[in-house]
């Protein structure tokens, strides 16, 4: 400890949330959530407002008393401890910095409460300031900082006392897009450097996709799906998850039969098209079903896979990508092509053949698809 007072010790402990429930009268804000975060892992709770993500985070931080369930950090049960006895690092959306202290004193706050020797405090604060790249601003007043700088101070203050776990509640929500992206990669770098376990809350899907080791999509106080960002994106467990993370097309289809791992379906409409698809996690469904296709999986005139006739309604150039709005016999489709695949604008009204790989259409029972995500 005294050997390297300036170091920020490894702050990665595990988090175990077991059967956590929080009721507000009859409303279940958090409904029986279980979640394990490994040491050094970055897990994001992603959801719209009212999904229970912040309530879950605040229950871990100690500001929300759980109705039932346990929360452990390492092997320590903290479920019934007041926040100050939990010793976790918390970063708030509003930064929650102390305006009556300067930058240095804000970061030194947790160390002074712990009655560390002055030399240790100086060394640790200096190291934390360096980590968030704010070294020269130690004596600044908080009011004289930009939003991005304030969030860095908040981060430094939350990690300076080497908490076992870092909790972040929409920390970048108040910043503009460019700054947000810059701070995303900076938070990731710091997290890797110090090996921090992070539980992160956001409603921004890009943020969740780019930062997380795993993300949990939350809905109605429950985890709708959890997994690595790529897996959740590629294999959504429900139409809700598909809609929530990225864009998606939904095509109503009828079950025809099976072919090995594949399911054969035909599109609805005046001229049904036979296509192959893969079953979603609910298994092979034979009732009313719907196929989900990501816009970037749709190609123009593909050599193999599904091929369906369509008419171009709109063709929009969005920098690196091109968005095609198509009408087909079975309803609208949105396609997202790379610019190289669609070098020229396609006039609206042009008839084209579009298609996709069989593995890119995922089948779900249709009643689930009516379950709109709540924004």
């Amino acid at each position: 400890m005294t050997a390297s007072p300036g170091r920020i010790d490894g702050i990665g402990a595990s988090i175990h949330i077991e059967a956590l429930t929080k009721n507000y009268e009859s409303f279940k804000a958090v409904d029986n959530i279980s979640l394990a975060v490994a040491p050094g892992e970055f897990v994001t709770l992603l959801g719209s407002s009212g999904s229970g993500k912040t309530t879950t985070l605040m229950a871990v931080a100690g500001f929300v008393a759980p109705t039932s369930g346990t929360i452990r950090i390492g092997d320590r049960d903290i479920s019934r401890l007041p926040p100050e006895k939990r010793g976790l690092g918390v970063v708030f959306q509003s930064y929650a910095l102390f305006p009556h202290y300067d930058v240095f004193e804000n970061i030194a706050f947790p160390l002074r409460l712990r009655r560390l020797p002055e030399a240790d405090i100086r060394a640790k604060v200096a190291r934390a300031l360096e980590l968030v790249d704010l070294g020269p601003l130690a004596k600044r007043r908080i009011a004289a900082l930009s939003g991005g700088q304030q969030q860095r101070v908040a981060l430094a203050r939350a990690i300076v006392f080497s908490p076992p776990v870092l909790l972040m509640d929409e920390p970048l929500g108040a910043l503009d897009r460019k700054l947000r992206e810059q701070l995303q990669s900076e938070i990731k770098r710091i997290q890797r450097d110090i090996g921090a376990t992070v539980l992160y809350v956001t409603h921004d899907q890009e943020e969740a996709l780019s930062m997380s080791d795993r993300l949990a999509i939350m809905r109605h106080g429950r985890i709708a799906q959890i997994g690595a960002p790529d897996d959740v994106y590629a294999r959504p467990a429900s139409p809700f998850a598909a809609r929530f993370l990225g864009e998606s097309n939904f095509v109503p289809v009828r079950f025809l039969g099976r072919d090995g791992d594949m399911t054969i379906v035909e599109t609805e409409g005046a001229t049904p098209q036979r296509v192959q698809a893969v079953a979603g996690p609910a298994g092979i469904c034979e009732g009313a079903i719907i196929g989900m296709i990501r816009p970037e999986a749709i190609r123009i005139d593909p050599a193999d896979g599904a091929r369906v006739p369509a008419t171009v309604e709109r063709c929009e150039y969005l920098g690196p990508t091109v968005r095609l709005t198509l009408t087909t016999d079975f309803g609208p489709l949105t396609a997202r092509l790379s610019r190289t695949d669609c070098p020229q604008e396609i006039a609206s009204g042009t008839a084209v053949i579009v298609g996709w790989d069989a593995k890119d259409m995922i089948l779900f029972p249709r009643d689930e698809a009516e379950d709109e995500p709540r924004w």
Partner: protein
Amino acid sequence: MSLRLLARPLLGAIVFAVCAYLVIPTLIVVPISFTQTDYISFPPEGFSLQWYETFLGAGPWRNATLNSFLVAAISALLATVVGTSAALGLHRLPRALARLAIWIVLLPMVVPSIIMAVALYGAFASLDLIGTRIGLILAHALLTLPFVVINVSAVMQKMDWRMVDAARSLGASPNKAFWKVTLPSILPGVIAGLVFAFLTSFDEVVVALFVTGIDSVTLPVQMWNGIRFEISPAVAAASTMLLLLSIFALAAYGAARRVGRSAPEGMNA
């Protein structure tokens, strides 16, 4: 065209007239206080500092002034402690209950002071508090409580309460979080409340007339007596001194507000 050219001087004249109307009756005490006559006269005759001597020298005027300072200071401190606690408590109440409670707290400001005076007279008489300094301090603390609650509540509404959560997460007990974070954040409101409470107590006359006795006379009561029984220019000297005090207090209040405003606005979570 010519109307437009006239507009600015006209506006200036009206503003000047309104300001004069507001200020001159107040300022008229200043020349009167220097009169040589031993009755109030305007315009003053001659020039003399004798009434300042009467006011500041040993005697009923100085006693009343010191008594006023003592009563105002203690009652304002009392109101500030109770009022700040009340504002903090009100903030935690459920919204509907808080709305009801704030009306009760603000009642002393709404009820006409003569009614407060009669009511307090009745209550204090049965408690043997009439004519005592303690009685007057309690009465003034009650009267000035709303000013503290209003000022502190206003600052609390703009405060980011996540700061208190942040302090807790960083290791502060609820008690430490209050002293290190909550109180410094609401301090501008607390100071403003204190200044208002002090000034209100210092020039309160109606309740003081009912509640004070011979040896706990305050400055406003002494002035009232002075004008009724003596028409003494010492009243003008006292008024001039009070005017100076008010100007200083207002300046202090403005400074406190400016310090409060320089803090960053809290964002809503």
